[in-house]
């Protein structure tokens, strides 16, 4: 905090003045960052008519509970499906991706084997391949093996995290001492047991970082599920809300669907924001090692 050293010739009044200006400038951007979320919260408390007739950035009627009920009962409770699907796809993908990336990163960090440099270069290079470029061919391939329109179509492609492998390699190099592994080898432990009961314990913080990053990526993914799923019962929240928004914007039939879209959007982002705030140590850690090398 005190890394701005007091300079001679500058009065403390000047320093205080600049501190006020800088804090003020940052507050403006903070307001910008939070404005859409504030708007979302305010709008989620309004019924369909108040949404149109009252000022958007302040509270009017209080219909949050009615809106929540409308969200969860809409179309036979399809929103509950979307919420559970999202949670299911995200949890399975995150746990799977974190395990796969951790063991791969650990192997690159702690073993010397033929093809190591080349394989790692290919994996690192693939970070540059934009995920959206893969979606259409993935759909075509999955449809050949009848996996389109199943949860596997979303989960399986989400299990690869080349960035996670990179992160875990850096983390394993820094945090798992070779002596620890050698000691376990002398004790006669097999390599798999060493990974499982010795290395994984040390790697746990990195594991949680990859878990969190993959969880967020899957929770927020839109393009892949949009393409590989067309059964609304299998949709995650992103695809469901976007389709509902299309219906609402196109007139929405007899019902005013805007309160449902808005309240549904609020419900859909709450878990992820809570996860971010509580687990901030882990994602910040991840971005830190990510930028440490090169």
């Amino acid at each position, binding site marked *: 905090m005190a890394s701005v050293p007091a300079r001679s010739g500058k009065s403390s009044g000047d320093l205080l003045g600049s501190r006020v200006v800088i804090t003020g400038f940052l507050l403006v951007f903070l307001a910008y960052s939070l404005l*859409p979320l504030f708007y979302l919260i305010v709008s989620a408390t309004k019924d369909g008519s108040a949404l149109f007739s009252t000022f958007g950035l302040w509270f009017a009627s209080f219909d949050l509970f009615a809106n929540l009920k409308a969200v969860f009962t809409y179309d036979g409770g399809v929103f509950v499906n979307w919420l559970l699907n999202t949670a299911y796809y995200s949890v399975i993908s995150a746990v799977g991706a974190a395990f796969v990336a951790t063991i791969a990163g650990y192997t690159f960090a702690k073993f010397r084997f033929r093809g190591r440099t080349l394989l790692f270069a290919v994996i690192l290079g693939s970070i540059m391949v934009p995920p959206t470029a893969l979606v259409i061919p993935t759909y075509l391939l999955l449809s050949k093996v009848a996996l389109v329109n199943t949860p596997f179509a979303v989960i399986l492609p989400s299990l690869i995290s080349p960035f996670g492998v990179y992160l875990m390699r850096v983390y394993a190099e820094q945090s798992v001492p070779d002596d620890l592994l050698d000691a376990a080898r002398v004790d006669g432990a097999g390599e798999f047991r060493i990974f499982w009961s010795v290395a994984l314990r040390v790697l746990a913080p990195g594991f949680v970082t990859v878990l969190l990053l993959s969880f967020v990526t899957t929770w927020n993914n839109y393009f892949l599920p949009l393409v590989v799923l067309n059964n609304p019962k299998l949709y995650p929240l992103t695809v469901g809300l976007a389709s509902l928004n299309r219906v609402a914007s196109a007139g929405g039939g007899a019902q005013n669907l805007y309160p449902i879209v808005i309240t549904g959007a609020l419900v859909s982002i709450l878990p992820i924001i809570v996860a971010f705030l509580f687990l901030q140590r882990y994602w910040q850690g991840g971005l830190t090692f990510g930028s440490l090398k090169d």
Partner: protein
Amino acid sequence: MVSQGAQSTKGGGERTEAGVSGGRRRQAAIPYVFLAPFLILFVTFLILPLAYALVISVYADKLVGGNVFVGFENYKQALGDPGFWDGVRRMIYFGIFQVPVMLGLALVFALLLDSGAAWFTTLFRLGFFIPYAVPSVVAALIWGYLYGPTFGPFSQLADYLGLPTPAFLSDTWMLPSIANVVTWEFTGYNMIIMYAALQAVPREVRDAGAVDGAKPWQIALYIRIPLIFPAILLTAVFSIIGTFQLFNEPSVLQALAPGVITDHYTPNLYAYGLAFTNQEYNYSAAVSFALGAVVVVFSYVFMLVTNRREVRA
């Protein structure tokens, strides 16, 4: 006790010696066994789709003869396709303005928060980052409502003040409106990457300039920014790649302004439409690869330019 321990160690040593030849062979296979889950998934869901897309991009579905090899015909068609270039041109225009604004803001915030020149730095760091946790679909949805000409608060305010309704979703303003959504989502994320890089710089190095009585902006420009240049470059390359891949935000806003966001508004919307509306999978794959080539060219030129500048500095 001691002698017993020594003996058993010797015995253990012999056992290991005997087990080495078999063990070493097993040992050599272990890295591959450990890598197998990742590699199988990597080949199935990354290499294979890429290879498959490459293969179908050189075929075409003809009325006569069915699926036939056509070589580079689809690519030639893409390079002469106004729909493709319209999207690419729009993304270049988008990137020239949006990427410097976003990364410039991110860098300024990272420098300010790292130097502790403000109060409530933790609050700002968290608050700026929160938009990144919001799915881009939901972000576009909320901003779409904020922009809305009927019940958007900006329109309401303009109405109240007797000003003309701001036309955020019109042909002229749509691109800046999308740029705003993207800036809102990713400024905090890029800030965190730069901030983390700044924090990783040893304190003595960071404070070196202050001793010579340099002004804070001089320290920032000549010491702190060059130190984290690789991290800035990383965010720039990822932003360039992300710009050309733009899909979610325009796809959601299309519902509000279908006349403005055409089927070739961005190259990715175009590729999606070709595949799923027109069922032209072969041509769609060629368009995706042509786009990939554009991205590679731009990223490469960008790195070349910035590297030369770095050498000169």
